């Protein structure tokens, strides 16, 4: 039935075209807060269309394998995606992204083992996509392991970058052998993928957990590129466009993220700064002055303006709900409460916004750095909850400090500063915080969630 064949082919091509358009529009919408939510719906519709129409692919067999594979992968991902806590999002994204890279590598492997590709160029693209996909697969798995706390040590040694370079060179050499049809034996293909997987692991192990969001974004871009390359191999337009668009958008996003953290990409990949090693510790004189929750409760209850500065500590303590409950009490008492969000507070971009949104804090109480910084000197209390680096005045003054030059929240300008943290733990950068030693600063020690509950009691006790 050539006619039916032709019409199936046409339907597939047309659907892929629509899918590509929906993906682009979806990404566009996702990049603006007003339309972001509809963006994922558009992209999702595109994915649905493309997946369903692919069952019509002429001459396809093995449905008895395809359907179970889709079912198993899909159900597991659905289940895990629904359950994961908001704070664990980065590693979950890493996991799903790695799966995509693995799939691209699998496509390359099938094509290369089969010897199905139709020429040097196509073979080269298959090899390139395969290597990139496998690196992204293994690297994302390591990133997941680190963020999930399964891998706690960052393995580093002299000459590490050189070793990685050698692995890469070996993989490329094998790739030339395979794509150039000099030695396309299954063993060569297998060796190629093994080397690529090793490279992914070796590249990612030395990078500290806190730098992972940037690295995950990079692997995300790489997976996109791999998918695009395999799309050329399979002559699949939807894969070509979607993969290339993500490869390009992901590269830009990686740069933007690194920039928002005041880092360069090279620095993230090759310097291993992302561990709280406490390398640089500046000298700060003065003493830490503790305070009790009951006293802070009174201070807050009778303040006219309170600015809350949440940080990484609030995230790990999952204290956002308690803090919002506290703030609601204050608002009911007529206190003017604001939240000040530093762009890199927490451990992933937009971390604090996501958490506060989850707890139900209305957006108009949340201000970013530029908006709020002029207001600190009109605040009676700056309530620092598990934040450290983002309020460290050293960033303004000490040129030798690793955070020098980063814009910070001017919490030190408030009449009173209350800092909630568990003890003397340093922040992400591992340096001392001069703010804690100021005359108008008091330390309220304890886990942010526990302290939050105590403060609620204290404010209620004021009556």
């Amino acid at each position, binding site marked *: 039935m050539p006619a039916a064949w032709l019409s199936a082919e046409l339907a597939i091509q047309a659907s892929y075209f629509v899918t590509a358009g929906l993906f682009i529009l*979806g990404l566009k919408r*996702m*990049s603006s807060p007003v339309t972001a939510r509809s963006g994922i719906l558009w992209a999702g519709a595109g994915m649905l269309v493309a997946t369903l129409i692919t069952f019509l692919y002429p001459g396809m067999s093995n449905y008895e394998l395809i359907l179970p594979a889709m079912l198993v*992968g899909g159900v597991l991902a659905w289940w895990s995606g629904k359950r994961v806590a908001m704070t664990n999002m980065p590693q979950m994204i890493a996991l799903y992204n790695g799966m995509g890279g693995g799939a691209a590598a699998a496509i390359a492997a099938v094509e290369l083992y089969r010897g199905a590709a139709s020429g040097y160029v196509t073979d080269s693209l298959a090899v390139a996509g395969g290597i990139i996909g496998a690196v992204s697969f293994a690297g994302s798995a390591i990133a997941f392991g680190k963020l999930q706390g399964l891998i706690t040590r960052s393995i580093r040694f002299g000459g590490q970058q050189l070793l990685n370079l050698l692995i890469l060179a070996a993989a490329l050499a094998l790739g030339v052998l395979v794509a150039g049809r000099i030695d396309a034996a299954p063993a060569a293909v297998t060796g190629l993928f093994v080397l690529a997987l090793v490279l992914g692991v070796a590249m990612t192990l030395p990078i500290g957990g806190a730098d992972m969001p940037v690295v995950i974004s990079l692997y995300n871009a790489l997976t996109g590129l791999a998918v695009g390359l395999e799309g050329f191999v399979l002559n699949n337009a939807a894969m070509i*466009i979607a993969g290339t668009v*993500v490869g*390009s958008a992901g*590269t830009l996003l990686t740069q933007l993220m690194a920039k928002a953290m005041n880092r360069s990409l090279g620095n993230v990949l090759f310097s291993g700064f992302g561990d709280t090693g406490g390398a640089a510790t500046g000298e700060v004189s003065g003493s830490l002055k503790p305070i009790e929750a009951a006293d802070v409760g009174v201070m807050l209850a009778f303040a006219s303006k309170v600015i809350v500065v949440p940080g990484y500590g609030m995230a790990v303590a999952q204290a956002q709900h308690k803090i919002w409950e506290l703030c609601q009490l204050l608002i009911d008492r007529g206190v003017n409460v604001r939240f000040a969000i530093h762009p890199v507070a927490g451990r992933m971009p937009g971390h604090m916004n996501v958490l506060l*949104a989850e707890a139900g804090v209305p957006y108009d109480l949340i201000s970013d750095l530029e908006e709020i910084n002029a207001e600190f000197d009109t605040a009676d209390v700056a309530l620092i909850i598990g934040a450290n680096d983002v309020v460290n005045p050293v960033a303004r003054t000490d040129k030798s400090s690793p955070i020098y030059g980063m814009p910070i929240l001017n919490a030190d300008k408030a009449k009173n500063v209350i800092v909630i943290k568990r003890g003397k733990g340093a922040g992400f950068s591992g340096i001392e915080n001069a703010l804690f030693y100021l005359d108008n600063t008091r330390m309220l020690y304890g886990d942010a969630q526990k302290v939050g509950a105590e403060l609620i009691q204290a404010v209620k006790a004021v009556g």
Partner: protein
Amino acid sequence: MTGMVALYIFMLAAFTGYEVIARVPVILHTPLMSGSNFVHGIVLVGAMVALGAAHTPLEKIIGFLGVLLAAGNAVGGYVVTERMLEMFKASGQGAKRRAPGAETH
């Protein structure tokens, strides 16, 4: 598809991807990373085609893994992105206020 045309498509798609997200605010970095992660889940259709044409047991095993992984990428990417962006909805008005220039499109 000739090589030249492939190059053009590559160039244009790259420009499009770059420009489309060039104005993303910091608060959307993580959801957008997740969203673009979902988009390359389209690798699923390629994996389906590859498995659909597999013959030897080895090819079938790899193809099976490919489809499984790709389905995980697509479904998982969708679920977490949707969950994250869902939360932006609740504060719609505020979000609008915080995005000057967003209305230029």
